């Protein structure tokens, strides 16, 4: 949307606003200041953003939200710190804190920046004449910040790629899936606060609205065979954005913080889930390259990310461009026995990032389905074997084990049960 003029940002629509509960307060109740026709005098002691102090200004009526919001990711931005702490070392934290304050903390969001005005980060300005919106207006609030990846994908702004079916066909906005509790947080103390957006429960879950797609839920063989090993987005998302090499600094010319991203490009790549959990047990997920580099913060000090390789640069992703039909779900051959173009194989990873991405790189392309169906079953007696090192016996033939064919040389123990299912 076009930038607002300075006067537009603060124009109050009194008829509408005075009909609302917030409009029953006087301006000074929340914003301080002084009753005067002179602007300078009137603005003495002005509190432009009362909800930056939610306990004081919002808590009387919105007790539940105010209790949890200080520990919500929109408030804490803990996701950044989880990654920074993992890649850095304690002695680097002061420099990184300075960097964060200059370049990242502006994304912290107050109640008002979702419910009454555009976020400061994108210029501010009242949404609708100071009327508080229970549902934040999507493009002026949510995708105003989450625009370059999620917004563009969801709204179909990546040229040549349709928007998300939930938006395209159902005109759903963000809060249809991301409900208030997800956005306002659920923890009431720091110890329980979320550390990352993919930590804890998977919320929202596709199967909440599409329950039949869960394993055992419908006749779709893809859902039956892959429902618990592939995240939904592996089959139902399409090409999305990746970025490389973001570097931050303070301008010597203006004194303002700035960033420079080396590259932005479209990808669709399936990688291994680096951290399968009970909530997200998937073996494979789409992966997106995040723009971190070992030298991203070098303006603030040398080697501030000494443990750079502790996290992948191709990360678990949930692209917001869901389609029923996608190139990869058109047939089994898109993945099985394919040329591997859909997979994050080592050749697609920069040499200097191979170590960081060891956990997500796909070593072996899924074999053709014919081979899969022909594969001998694993004897039921193997259920009780203490060792799961298949290759220990099947490469040497000891204990009369059938020796695996030569074309199996690349397979590792973890791959065997993918084709050789245990006999019932």
């Amino acid at each position, binding site marked *: 949307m076009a930038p607002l*003029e*300075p*006067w537009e940002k*603060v*124009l*109050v*629509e*009194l008829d509408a606003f005075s009909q609302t509960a917030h409009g029953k307060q*006087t*301006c*000074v109740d929340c*914003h301080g*200041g002084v*009753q*005067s*026709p002179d*602007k300078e005098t*009137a603005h003495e002691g002005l509190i432009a953003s009362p909800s930056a102090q939610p306990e004081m200004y919002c808590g009387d009526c919105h007790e539940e939200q105010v209790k949890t919001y200080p520990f919500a990711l929109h408030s804490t931005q803990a996701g950044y710190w989880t990654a920074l702490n993992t890649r850095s070392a304690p002695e680097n934290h002061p420099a990184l804190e300075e960097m964060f304050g200059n370049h990242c903390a502006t994304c912290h969001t107050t109640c008002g920046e979702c419910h009454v005005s555009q976020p400061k980060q994108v210029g501010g300005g009242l949404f609708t004449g100071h009327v508080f919106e229970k549902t934040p207006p999507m493009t002026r609030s949510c995708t105003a910040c989450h625009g*370059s990846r999620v917004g563009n994908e969801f709204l179909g702004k990546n040229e040549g790629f349709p928007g998300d079916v939930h938006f395209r066909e159902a005109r759903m906005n963000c809060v249809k899936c991301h409900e208030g509790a997800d956005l306002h947080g659920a923890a009431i103390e720091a110890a329980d606060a979320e550390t990352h957006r993919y930590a804890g429960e998977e919320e929202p879950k596709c199967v909440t609205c599409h329950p039949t797609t869960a394993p055992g839920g419908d006749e779709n063989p893809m859902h039956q065979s892959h429902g618990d090993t592939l995240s939904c987005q592996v089959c139902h998302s399409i090409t999305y*954005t990746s*970025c490389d090499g*973001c570097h931050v600094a303070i*301008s010597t*010319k*203006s004194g*303002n913080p*700035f*960033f*420079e*991203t*080396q*590259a*932005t490009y479209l990808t669709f790549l399936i990688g291994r889930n680096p951290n399968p959990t009970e909530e997200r047990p998937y073996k494979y997920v789409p992966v997106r390259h995040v723009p971190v580099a070992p030298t991203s913060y070098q303006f603030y000090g040398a080697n501030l990310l000494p443990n750079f390789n502790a996290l992948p640069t191709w990360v678990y992703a949930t692209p917001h461009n869901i389609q029923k039909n996608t190139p990869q779900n058109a047939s089994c051959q898109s993945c099985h026995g394919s040329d591997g173009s859909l997979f994050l194989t080592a050749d697609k990873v920069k040499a200097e990032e191979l170590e960081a991405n060891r956990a997500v790189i796909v070593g072996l392309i899924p074999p053709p389905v014919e081979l899969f169906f022909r594969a001998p079953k694993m004897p039921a007696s193997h259920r009780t074997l203490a060792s799961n090192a298949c290759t220990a016996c099947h490469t040497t033939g000891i204990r009369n084990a059938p020796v695996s064919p030569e074309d199996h040389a690349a397979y590792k123990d973890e791959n065997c049960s993918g084709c050789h299912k245990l006999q019932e």
Partner: protein
Amino acid sequence: MKSKALKILIVAFLLLSACGKANPPSPTATAEEKPVGTESVAEVQPEADECVACHTDKERLIETAAPEMEAESESKGVG
């Protein structure tokens, strides 16, 4: 005796007249009380809200809003 009785009657009449009700208010007089009441309510209302007066007046805001000097972004690429 007659004149004494007459005097008593006259005094009694005057006394009774003095204790009698004043003329009942006419309907017009009743109607006239309402504005008095309205004026008293108006007196306790707050003074005009200067914040609202300015922030609902587009022309005044255009006149007084400080122009924003948008610093040219030195960032490059997608954020």
